[in-house]
């Protein structure tokens, strides 16, 4: 467990979190390489199925990062995303998974430091939870298949 390096998917809004991640890079602020970013046009585009598929395919954690409340480029995409994240948290909890594997953050395009902080905090949180149980089973099945 000590060597566990989680795989984390970050679904980041083009207008804020993605730009913030870019800014973190420009400012040479490092954040864990565990976070794999997927850029979305707005977090309102993120549906429950995207979060579920990330976990099903073995991601240890997945977060959605959208604009600050009230600042969504498309008016309310981020508040819709926040509700979907809560829905998925409850859904995976009923399946026996830790709801903390899914999270929602709100940041602005200028918050490069905050993005790096979030990436670090979430990575530590997932490290504490341990690997997604699905991942081990999948790799065992694949090994058995080979």
């Amino acid at each position, binding site marked *: 467990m000590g060597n566990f390096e989680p795989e984390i998917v970050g679904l980041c809004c083009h207008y804020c979190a993605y730009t913030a991640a870019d800014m973190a890079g420009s400012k040479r602020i490092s954040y864990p390489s565990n976070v794999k970013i997927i850029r979305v046009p707005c977090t309102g585009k993120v549906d429950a*199925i995207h979060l*579920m598929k990330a*976990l*099903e395919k073995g991601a240890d954690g997945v977060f959605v990062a959208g604009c600050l409340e009230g600042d969504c480029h498309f008016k309310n995409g981020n508040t819709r995303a926040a509700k979907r994240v809560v829905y998925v948290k409850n859904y*995976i909890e009923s*399946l026996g*998974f830790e709801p903390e594997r899914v999270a929602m953050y709100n940041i602005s395009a200028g918050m490069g430091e905050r993005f790096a902080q979030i990436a670090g905090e979430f990575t530590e949180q997932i490290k504490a939870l341990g690997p997604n*149980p699905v991942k081990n*089973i999948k790799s065992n*099945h694949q090994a058995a298949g080979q």
Partner: protein
Amino acid sequence: MITAEQKPIEEIIEYIAPYDRILLVGCNECVTVCAAGGRKEVGLLASALHLHSLKQGKTVDIKEITLERQCDPEYVEELVSLIDSADAILSMACGCGVQTIAGRYKDKPVYPAVNTKFMGASESQGIWAERCKGCGDCLLGVTGGVCPVARCSKQLMNGPCGGTSNGQCEISPDTDCAWRLIWERLKALGMEKRYIEVMVAKDWRPAGGGGPRRIVREDLT
């Protein structure tokens, strides 16, 4: 539309536990509109069932398909090519769809993944409310377009009961008193006289009191 809600995931898991190959069937009609059993919900449920089975150390084969209408035999026929590769069918349609599938594929167990709720309309995004009981003898023409059968908790036919309070029903402050709505509507239309007219006892036979109902249109058969 017919509204539905997904069953608790624990109940669905219990239904399909004995099987390795599941055919998960959604419906493109009412349950799609009320976000209970359309293509999107089929994908989500399949993903949840995969996650659960993997956590148990198993893999389950789930085939996803969403039919145009599950309550119509010609669309249910589309499952013929898939049925042999499934041990059980999990339907996300309303009770009509589940029964159409069960009637067509008699040697396969069919399980419902949703609870069919009521005939309702959308009040706003994500909120649906009951509007029709299918009583078979529509009264909306005399009640100003507000149904006392579906919207009055006691199904009263001649004005409100003593439980109405500030225009709301005693069962919940979120429930409008149907007879308050009827009165306001009739008044706005200048049809107050209709409110005074006493309605005779309603015949509940067309509402299902006479047993399961059918419609036969000779011109279409």
